[in-house]
């Protein structure tokens, strides 16, 4: 203990002669608790989650504007709002943006924010890697969108089938940006997947066995496994595409021995799990919301979990149902038809479980609940139209028509996005300390639901009438006029509902600032661990790591049963909640390096596409990031972390010592934040 004794208690870390040695290559750490630096250099999973959310809402607006452009062009026959070429770019960028820059990162936002809270730990397993994932995602997304200003976006549909993705048919740089940009974004998702898998497996609170894990965390975990195994497959496809386009290979060029079908297979082996990657966390969100507002535990918890795992496994065996029209042969078609019908079973199990959860419950129709019910109903419609694709003859008829567009918007908008909005309304008080307005929220919900059905409902009809997707206009004699107009009106209704959502954020925030009303830790009388800490969640999450004995631990601390089996309250939420005022909590220190390291990747991307000099610059940034990262202990030996979560801004000497000591043992200090 010579180290500790070498300092007198009043000698703070800034003191002159300190025995704590600053490791080679480490600058002064970013330590400010407020201001932009506290966000840019943060490694806190909650801030990372909020940044993911904010970033993806921004891209949601971009993708939304692209959607409105598409619908404006198609409002009437023969319009010339967009040229055919620009239309190709807009719908491609709309698809890629909504999938990779909106839905996936929004799910990442919830996963980042909620998983550590739900499993009762203080951060993810690797906090700096978590920040790195976010910055790589953000820079990759910006990189991808800069293609608009550098000659135009990708133009082959979000799946960019060969041969349309080759240089011959798409001579601009749009698809290069697609190939390299998605590669970068994929790295972010892969890092995040490894990080969150390790977090859930290793860092659960004592007593939280696998079958006491909240359903959201379960579904997010399955999602991370899907990402883990699906991303390398798309990585291979994108590498081959990059080599084809930039280095002259012919992997997908049929005239020189290549095989366009290889692209389709690789793409959909990734692409179908991707569908579940987008929807599974939403299933989880809904499974958290519905029990709270039904005042009943989730019906059939093990079935919920196992059906999620089953979807995760079966999701790998259905990819070729995207390719029935490509001539894969009758045996393949039959096998994939069958597997596609089978995968509807676990999904149906989930729907029935949600209904059974609500059945006989004391329902409260809050905005969050409305959105959750929105998923249950709209996703069911989308799921049913999905099963119709399992029948190969019908699918051959529907392929590349608006029927498909209707189907996947019902599952992705009506499913994934509605649940995400529900999640916003549900967890907003936990994240920011105030509720979103319920009245405006209901406007938001109904406008969105009506607009959504107006937009995508008619597309079923248009598709069955034979209107092709990806066609920039149609002629008046085709009979598509009326429903296209309806769809366009619907799209603008959705736009209004999104504006209402943003207005709700602003007005609710202003009201909160005016009234200084503080929302309690448990505004909904909820069930999970995340509600037993104050709102907004303190930086260190838990004063004490909770010991878990039940599924829905917090609920069981509040409620018990009397002799007749009736539900009785045994404690108020305040009594069993944590105060959030702990001091001396070890937290990982902020770091410059994640953002530096991530900043290198887009330059390497530009270098690959344009001039290798840029790649050298990017490589140097990357190296600087890696070097700084390696040389920096994850917890700053000089940090005065004792003040975390406390009102007391004087760091206690004790805390300072503890920090100093923690810094010594730093190799494993990333674990340090979760003593158990």
């Amino acid at each position, binding site marked *: 203990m010579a*180290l500790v004794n070498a300092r007198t208690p009043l000698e703070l870390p800034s003191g002159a002669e300190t025995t704590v040695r600053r490791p080679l290559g480490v600058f002064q750490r970013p330590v400010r608790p407020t201001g932009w630096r506290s966000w840019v250099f943060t490694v806190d999973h909650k801030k990372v989650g909020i940044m993911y959310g904010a970033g993806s809402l921004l891209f949601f607006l971009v993708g939304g504007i692209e959607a409105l452009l598409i619908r404006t062009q198609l409002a009437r026959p023969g319009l010339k709002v967009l040229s055919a070429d620009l239309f190709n770019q807009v719908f491609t960028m709309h698809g890629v943006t909504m999938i990779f820059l909106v839905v996936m990162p929004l799910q990442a936002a919830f996963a980042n924010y909620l998983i550590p809270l739900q499993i009762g730990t203080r951060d993810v397993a690797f906090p700096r890697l978590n920040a790195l994932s976010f910055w790589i995602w953000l820079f990759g997304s910006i990189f991808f969108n800069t293609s608009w200003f550098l000659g135009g976006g990708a133009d082959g549909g979000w799946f960019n089938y060969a041969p349309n993705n080759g240089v011959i048919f798409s001579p601009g740089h749009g698809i290069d940006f697609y190939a390299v940009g998605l590669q970068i974004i994929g790295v972010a998702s892969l890092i995040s*997947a490894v990080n969150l898998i*390790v977090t859930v497996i290793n860092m659960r609170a004592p007593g939280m066995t696998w079958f006491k894990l909240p359903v959201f965390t379960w579904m997010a975990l399955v999602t991370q496994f899907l990402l883990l195994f699906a991303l*390398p497959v798309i990585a291979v496809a994108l590498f*081959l595409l990059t080599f084809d386009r930039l280095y002259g290979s012919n*992997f997908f060029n049929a005239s*020189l021995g290549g095989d366009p079908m290889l692209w389709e297979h690789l793409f959909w082996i990734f692409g179908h799990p991707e569908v579940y990657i987008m929807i599974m966390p939403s299933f989880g969100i809904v499974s958290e919301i519905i029990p709270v507002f039904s005042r009943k535990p989730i019906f059939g918890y093990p079935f919920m979990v196992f059906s999620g795992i089953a979807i995760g496994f079966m999701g790998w065996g259905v990819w070729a149902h995207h390719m029935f029209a490509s001539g894969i042969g009758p045996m393949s078609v039959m096998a994939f038809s069958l597997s596609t019908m089978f995968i509807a079973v676990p999904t149906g199990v989930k729907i029935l479980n949600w209904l059974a959860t609500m059945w006989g419950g004391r329902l409260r129709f809050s905005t969050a609940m409305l959105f959750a019910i929105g998923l249950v109903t709209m996703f069911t419609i989308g799921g049913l139209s999905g099963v119709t694709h399992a029948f190969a003859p019908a699918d051959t008829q529907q392929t590349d028509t608006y029927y498909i567009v209707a189907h996947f918007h019902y599952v992705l908008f009506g499913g994934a996005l509605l649940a995400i909005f529900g999640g916003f309304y549900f967890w907003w008080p936990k994240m920011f300390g105030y509720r979103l307005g319920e009245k405006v929220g209901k406007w938001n919900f109904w406008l969105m639901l009506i607009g959504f059905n107006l937009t995508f409902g008619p597309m079923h009809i248009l598709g069955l009438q034979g209107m092709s997707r990806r066609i920039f206009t149609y002629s008046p004699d085709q009979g598509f006029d009326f429903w296209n107009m309806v769809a366009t009106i619907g799209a603008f209704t959705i736009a209004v509902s999104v504006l209402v959502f943003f207005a709700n954020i602003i007005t609710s925030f202003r009201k909160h600032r005016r009234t200084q009303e503080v929302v309690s830790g448990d505004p909904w009388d909820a069930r999970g661990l995340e509600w037993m800490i104050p709102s907004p969640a303190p930086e260190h999450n838990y004063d004490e790591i909770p010991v878990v004995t039940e599924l829905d631990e917090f609920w069981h601390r509040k409620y018990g049963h009397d002799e007749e089996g009736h539900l009785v309250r045994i404690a108020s939420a305040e009594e069993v909640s944590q105060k959030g005022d702990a001091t001396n909590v070890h937290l990982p220190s902020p770091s410059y390096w994640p953002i530096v390291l991530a900043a290198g990747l887009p330059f390497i991307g530009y270098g690959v596409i344009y001039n290798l000099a840029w790649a050298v610059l990017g490589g140097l940034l990357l190296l600087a990031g890696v070097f700084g990262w390696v040389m920096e202990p994850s917890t700053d030996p000089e940090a005065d972390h004792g003040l975390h979560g406390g009102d007391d801004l004087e760091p206690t000497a004790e805390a300072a010592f503890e920090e100093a*000591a923690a810094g010594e043992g730093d190799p494993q200090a990333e*674990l340090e934040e979760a003593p158990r």
Partner: protein
Amino acid sequence: MTDVGIEMTDDVKVPPLEGGHLTEHEVHPTATGISNEKLSMWVFLGSECLLFGGLISTYLLYKNRPGAIEVRDTVSGAHVGNAQRISDLFDIGFTSVSSFILLASSLTMVFAVLAAAKHQQDKLRLWLGTTAALGAVFVGGQVYEFTEFLNKGAGYTSNVSTSAFYTLTGFHGVHVSIGILILLATLALTFRERSQVTPERVEIVGLYWHFVDVVWILIFTVIYLIK
């Protein structure tokens, strides 16, 4: 504040692998008992399997797709005949030797992990260095092989079989090279005053290294042994 469990002092230098000051952390409790670092490497390697799976599938699809390659003499550059696919140019003897060297590096990696576990600093350095050197010989062999093929007239874009071959073996070569960098970085870190090279970290490096070797067994079989 006397029970923080850190025995290391600043003024007394304890050789890191012998002092055992990190043992507290090595047994840091996690829900599974496996440390986060080691688990993350296993999880990551799971993902890598699919990466090589995709590349190997691509090669299998394309290896027999013919496309004329004009074979030149590597010295005189004279046209000596035609090949249809990359496998016509293989020198199985040479690649077998370099494959053996890579496999031998797995053995030396095991020695390194053992030395780390026994806190034998010098032996650890020796075996880390040897492993990196053997890996470098393998990569050197690959560079030589690629150059030979190129001089004989089989470039990256000659036909799809050459493209698939260079892509698959190239990706593996990059993985070995990254492994060498990690080994050298680990070796360098053992010389730091207060080394962070714990036995477990050496083991994690070993996991990656063995994975890269095992993948090569697969690739070697698929490319060179199966006709």
